[in-house]
């Protein structure tokens, strides 16, 4: 298997505050990679770095054969990295449909708009019902679905999901993860950030435990469950 995304020796942060201190990671095509770990240790920053929102201080990033370490966010999206951010970041005054269409903003994605929209509505039927509703009036679960749907509209080769379960009721978390599993079954490459290791361990191809800006442990999902010590130390499980 070839690595779709490969990160090597990534160092970055906000001003003098170093958040990531030497991160290396390979994401294989068609795999589900989960980044787990306690809050405030750099999981979100890692995704924001990959999508170009946080500038890289040191290290290299390659995606589908090209270097993306010094590229702008729009160039990285155009290369095929789709980032569904934490807290959804919808366009609050646009309708659900307008939000979804913004997902297909780039010319390549715009050509596929109709087909993709139909796919998104099939995967997330609730959005078809709500398509003319203004985003700021949606419930938390609906907003999450719009966030994911908007990401899918871009197409892309890698889908990065930042804590899709955040702030949702348990029943909604199950629904959202059902969508994520459906996406993995269709062969989509996903890089997932999740605080709850147990929720993703048996599905993930690869799990990386982020602690204090570095990976404390990397391995297969099933392996992690066989290591109670790690679970206990880092995740309090």
């Amino acid at each position: 298997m070839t690595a779709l995304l490969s990160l090597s020796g990534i160092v970055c942060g906000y001003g003098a505050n170093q958040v990531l201190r030497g991160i290396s990671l390979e994401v294989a095509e068609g795999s589900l990679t989960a980044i787990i770990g306690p809050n405030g240790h750099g999981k979100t920053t890692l995704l924001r770095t990959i999508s170009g929102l946080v500038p890289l201080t040191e290290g290299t990033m390659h995606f589908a054969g090209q270097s993306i370490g010094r590229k702008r966010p729009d160039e990285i999206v155009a290369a095929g990295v789709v980032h569904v951010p934490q807290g959804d970041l919808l366009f609050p005054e646009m309708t659900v449909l307008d939000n979804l269409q913004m997902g297909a903003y780039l010319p390549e994605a715009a050509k596929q708009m109709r087909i993709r929209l139909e796919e998104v509505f099939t995967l997330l039927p609730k959005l078809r019902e709500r398509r003319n509703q203004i985003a700021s009036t949606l419930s938390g679960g609906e907003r999450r679905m719009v966030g994911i749907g908007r990401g899918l509209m871009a197409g892309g080769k890698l889908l990065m999901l930042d804590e899709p379960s955040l702030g949702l009721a348990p029943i909604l978390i199950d629904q959202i993860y059902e969508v994520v599993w459906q996406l993995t079954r269709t062969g989509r490459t996903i890089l997932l950030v999740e605080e709850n290791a147990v929720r993703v361990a048996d599905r993930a191809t690869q799990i990386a435990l982020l602690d204090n800006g570095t990976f404390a442990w990397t391995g297969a999902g099933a392996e992690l469950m066989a290591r109670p010590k790690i679970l206990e130390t880092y995740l309090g499980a």
Partner: protein
Amino acid sequence: MDVPVDVWVQIIASGLTLGAMYAVAAIGLALVYGSLNMLNMAHGALMALGGYICFYTMTRLGMPALVGVAAAMVVCGAVGLAIYLAAAQPMLRSANFETQIFIATIGIGAILENVILRAFGPQPQPQSLNLTGALVIGNVHIPNQNLLILAVALGLMVVLSLLLRHTRLGRAIRATAQNREAAQLMGVRVSLVYAQVLALSGALAAISGIMVSSLSGLLPNMGGDPMLKAFIICVVAGLGNVYGTVATAIVLGLLEAWIQYVLGVRYSFALLLLLVIVVLIWRPYGLFGRKQVVRL
């Protein structure tokens, strides 16, 4: 109070002209604030520049009016772009961007005004683009220039609305205004959007400067008063809200014309300010603004 019908028509006609003129000035400010959180204090100087460029192109170069308007839009658009490249872009990442760019654009406005003063002198000039004659219906007397202003302003608003709703640039502007980071994640190159918004705002300032100067003449500092009113309109509407800005501008224009008739010209500005104070106490985020209060 018993006001005859033709006086009402007269008040409404001049109020709509004022409102439409204010709207064109205010939209430029609202677009820039909405997408960059930038209060462009050089907008008034850009209006004056637009007025003078049109005057210069028509009177000194002997070109037709449309060329004068186009030249003013191009020059002011280019100056708007230059303001972005020279001042806004280098400061954009700073935590105090809003304060810094506010002060920087005051300086740029002063420089522009003084350049105009050097080039054209301090004496007032009449705007060359000025229709004569008037539409007279009974006792109602509406100057053709006012009708032209109204028609151009309405046309502009329709064009802008279509641009914002149906073009790729318009979608990018709205997305950036509503959530800058999300727009970037959709593939919007925000620095390009900012540059285009400032150029567009500069071109709008040129048109509104030509309109204002066609009624009250050209002076290097002619932009100050309409810019202040445009700011008031933006604040009352809720900073950055383009459609709310247009509605507020028209209502305030009508109100101003009515106050001028009933109480006299000298009260109109004072009452306008009073209204702003009342609105801001009642709704600090403006009439159409998003419900959020940011305190420094």
